[in-house]
């Protein structure tokens, strides 16, 4: 089973929830898919294995074979390859790796080169298997790296995914085809606005979901009202607590800094299992 932890708005507590949930499951994996701003490792402090460099295919043109017919530029939707004067220029950072130019080249002059998009690291900590990805600074395309992390999750293990914020392609890549989405929000206008976007995303993907309202006493009641209206179960409410915020700042998982919380996270996991079982029957 794969449980993803997501939110429209950043900073609502995704990583806090994902790490403590994973630590409360017997034999789980945590996969941090927020490759732009990966933070789970700061809480779990895994012992890492050596990095895997992750690359994407880009065209590599053999100028001797190229007839400058320009067909590669015709098929490329991303303007990543162009014939100009007596040569072919490529712009690897614009390439989406579709392989179209290679397939279209009548002279067979295009081979597959690679461009580095980031790294993936595996590690272990407190009985958890850990994996995360880090996008190379300056690289724009997160989804291929996220899909690579997803491919490292064994289908029959229990995994918790820490997803990126927002609602666009990186989020889709992180949560698509997971069994359940935990939406984390805060009861403020920003939290509610971005929660609605996240709920729409989850609906498009047809994944069952539940809500955690973090810092549940800092704002108003509108998030709870919205959840009731949309019939999204509220899995947990956590009032603002300066001690939790301070433990967070030091990178301490809630269930380790406050062992009394472990039971609540174990119950959260049991509730999720029940909801997933219910959604499948």
């Amino acid at each position, binding site marked *: 089973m794969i449980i993803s932890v997501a939110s429209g708005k950043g900073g609502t507590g995704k990583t806090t929830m994902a790490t403590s949930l994973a630590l409360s499951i017997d034999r789980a994996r945590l996969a941090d898919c927020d490759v732009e701003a990966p933070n789970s490792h700061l809480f779990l402090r895994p012992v890492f294995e050596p990095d895997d460099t992750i690359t994407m295919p880009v065209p590599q043109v053999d100028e001797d074979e190229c007839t400058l017919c320009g067909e590669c530029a015709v098929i490329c939707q*991303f303007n990543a390859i162009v014939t100009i004067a007596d040569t072919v220029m490529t*712009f690897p950072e614009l390439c989406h790796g579709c392989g179209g130019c290679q397939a279209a080249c009548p002279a067979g002059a295009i081979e597959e080169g690679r461009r580095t998009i980031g790294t993936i690291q595996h590690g272990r900590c407190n009985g958890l298997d850990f994996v995360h990805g880090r996008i190379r600074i300056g690289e724009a395309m997160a989804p291929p790296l996220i899909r690579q992390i997803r491919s490292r999750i064994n289908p029959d293990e229990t995994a918790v995914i820490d997803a990126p914020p927002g609602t666009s392609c990186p989020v889709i890549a992180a949560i698509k085809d997971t069994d359940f989405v935990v939406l984390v929000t805060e009861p403020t206008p920003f939290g509610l606005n971005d929660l609605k976007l996240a709920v729409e995303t989850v609906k498009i993907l047809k994944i069952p979901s539940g809500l955690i309202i973090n810092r549940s006493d800092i704002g108003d009641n509108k998030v709870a009202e919205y959840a009731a209206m949309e019939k999204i179960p509220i899995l947990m409410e956590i009032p603002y607590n300066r001690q939790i915020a301070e433990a967070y700042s030091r990178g301490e998982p809630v269930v380790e800094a406050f062992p009394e919380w472990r039971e609540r996270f174990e119950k959260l996991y049991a509730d999720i299992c029940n909801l997933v079982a219910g959604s499948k029957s």
Partner: protein
Amino acid sequence: MKIAVSSKGKTLDAELDARFGRAACFIVLDPNNQSYDVVENTQNLNAAQGAGIQAAKTVADHGVSAVLTGNCGPKAYAVLEQAGISVITGVSGSVRQAVEQYKNGELRPAGGPNVNGHWM
């Protein structure tokens, strides 16, 4: 010898378009001749990325030897340079004025791109 001027409109009195990649169109002409061609750039206005690259390719295909524009980013510059086209940035006013300045030798080629890429 032909040159291309990025333009907001299809006449010599139109305002020079400061954008190169997403210019409304290009006026292609021989500075010593009254006639001119309008080269559309509409396919580029909606390009998700790489508009400058395509615009550079477009003007290169029209056999120009110089481009007069406002701003030119690194990718477009690289393509124009590869095609042996001299790039003159920071030009403004009407297309006609720009061509006059060019004829009078008042404009100097840029040594490189004068704006950062939008990445897109």
